[in-house]
């Protein structure tokens, strides 16, 4: 029994091992900086924004779909929200204005998700093509609205939230991340939706024949993905004190990298949310770690990320089929996906 569990979780152990190795690496080379409290508090402030976005994209990946539009959509939604909030910032109730602003952003994200879903599930356009087109549309709209400038004037309360520590040590963005994480975990592991999601991702035809309304599943998943991504963007605008058409463009590749590292492949049907958390933290440790070296340029972070990804891929193919999420050796074993 114990042996079986070990095998089932071997991928998680491998990721944890890698995280430990990177920590050790930076500890040995930059121990004095790596273990400063400020550095860890800083990281806890930094990863929630793209961490939440990654969690959103995870649903798309598990469903076997791709979304390239989430960042552009999130930027557009937050631009609209900031415009509303700045126009009403001097009103009496800041809280009310902020809530309405957030609601506006989430509504736009929902619409964007529905459009993505309809394009992919309704019109059968390949997901990458459909969502890249939508990415261009959203970015175009944002630039047209703002001339490419950033939109400022967030209520002071909103920007404060992004930098506040609850009880003096718990950053609010981290708290939001944890809440979103728990909700996602519940959705994936304890609901019918989660179960169906893995089914659709594994084999959409088989799911269809098992009386799953796959079209509704795909549309719903895109909505969920884009709404969660939008929450990430809402955290981001608080750190940036404004919204802009191209904020966070570098997060698109970073999120995809994290998911693949965590074993959530866009082929669908696989991956565990716990692994995603480990991958997010590992990526942040590397980014922060590389910034400690005066003579390493930022490209080295990408280099280490890439190397890590390769190590994970190689180790996965070497390990048994037990708990490992990739099915790269599936053909050999004759038990691959349809």
């Amino acid at each position: 029994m114990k042996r079986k569990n070990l095998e089932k979780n071997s991928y998680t152990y491998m990721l944890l091992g890698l995280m430990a190795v990177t920590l050790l690496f930076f500890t040995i080379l930059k121990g004095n900086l790596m273990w400063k409290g400020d550095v860890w508090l800083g990281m806890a402030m930094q990863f929630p924004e793209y961490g939440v976005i990654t969690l959103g994209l995870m649903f798309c990946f598990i469903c076997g779909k791709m979304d390239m539009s989430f960042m552009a959509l999130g930027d557009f939604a937050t631009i609209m929200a900031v415009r509303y909030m700045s126009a009403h910032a001097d009103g009496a109730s800041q809280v009310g204005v902020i809530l309405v602003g957030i609601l506006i952003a989430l509504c736009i994200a929902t619409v964007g998700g529905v459009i993505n879903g309809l394009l992919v599930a309704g019109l059968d356009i390949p997901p990458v093509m459909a969502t890249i087109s939508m990415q261009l549309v959203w970015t175009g709209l944002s630039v047209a609205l703002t001339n490419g400038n950033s939109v400022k004037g967030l209520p002071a309360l909103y920007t404060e939230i992004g930098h506040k520590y609850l009880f003096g040590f718990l950053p609010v963005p981290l708290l939001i991340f944890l809440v979103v994480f728990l909700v996602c975990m519940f959705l994936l592991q304890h609901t019918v939706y989660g179960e169906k999601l893995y089914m659709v991702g594994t084999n959409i035809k088989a799911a269809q024949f098992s009386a799953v309304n796959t079209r509704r599943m795909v549309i719903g998943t895109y909505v969920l993905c884009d709404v969660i991504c939008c929450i990430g963007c809402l955290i981001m605008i608080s750190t940036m004190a404004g919204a802009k058409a191209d904020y966070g463009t570098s997060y698109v590749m970073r999120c995809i990298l994290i998911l693949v590292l965590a074993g959530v492949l866009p082929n669908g049907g696989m991956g565990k949310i716990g692994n995603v958390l480990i991958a997010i933290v590992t990526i942040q440790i590397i980014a922060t770690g590389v910034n400690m070296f005066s003579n390493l340029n930022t490209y080295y972070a990408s280099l280490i990320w890439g190397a890590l990804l390769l190590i994970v891929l190689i180790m996965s193919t070497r390990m048994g089929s037990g708990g490992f999420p990739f099915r790269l050796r599936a053909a050999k074993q004759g038990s691959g996906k349809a």
Partner: protein
Amino acid sequence: MKKIVALLIAVMMLMSVAALAEGTPTIAFVPKVIGQAWWDYVQKNVEEWATESGYDVIYKGPTEVDAAAQVQIMTDLVNQGVDILCFSPNDPAATEEICKQAREKGIIVIATEAASMENIDFDIEAHDDGSLGAFLMDNLARQMGEEGEYITMVGSMTMESHNNWADGAVARQEEAYPNMTLVEDRRVEDNSDAQQAYNLTMQLKEKYPNLKGILGTGSFSAPGAARAIADMGLTGQMFAINVAIPSEVGDLLDEGILECVALWDPGVAAKAMLNCGLKMFNGETIEDGADLGIEEYSKCRLVGKVLIGDCDITVTKDNWRSFGF
């Protein structure tokens, strides 16, 4: 197993002790982006400064022009506890909060191209708009022999800096070169397009046969105007100058159609920022007329938090290759 853990802890403690021993300031420089010619040139100068002064400078920037990624890097540096943070923001307002935190921690914050920022110690600029215009005019007047007709050409009337530079140039001419005349009060627009600048130059020469100089403030005006001058066979009799990226006008400089273009030296500006930070770290006060230890910044004017130097340079056929951008 226990032995390994013990060993690791010992190593970590040694590292911490080693860290406490050093007393020199940690300096960080965050460019808008890395891996781009303009900023590669800045990096070269920062490294030069580091070897000359003997201080370590952490040069870190985002790999894409992304304000969010830049703020993340600045957060890392602030939390590591650098002593001096120099940077050039992609989006000044987005960096206000992290700069505020940095200053609360006692970090010296020096910016450039961010004159509007509040949470900084100083913003260092190569010039103000008027002085760059005057600089352009001085160079054009020298070529024209301080007499003759000229016009001003801007990228577009909506570009505030272009117009300010042109205003500065005209003011300089009125003050110092009485034998020169501006023939067209209206600004000519080339819409940031070298082909349009070419056509405009042809048309203007027909309208004003005695036209002798074209003062452009957009980076496309002189390349277009210079080609037109060469095609009309007027090289050496009619002149153009503008603010330009060296590599875009390199062949025109080599052929002698353009004698020079104007630019500010971003490398020298970076060194001035580092010097300013270091001076503050050593407890010196920076005030109007401050000397930042570099010729171009030996008498800085202080306006609010903005320190203005005199860093404008001419790019000629002899030096355009040294910039690499």
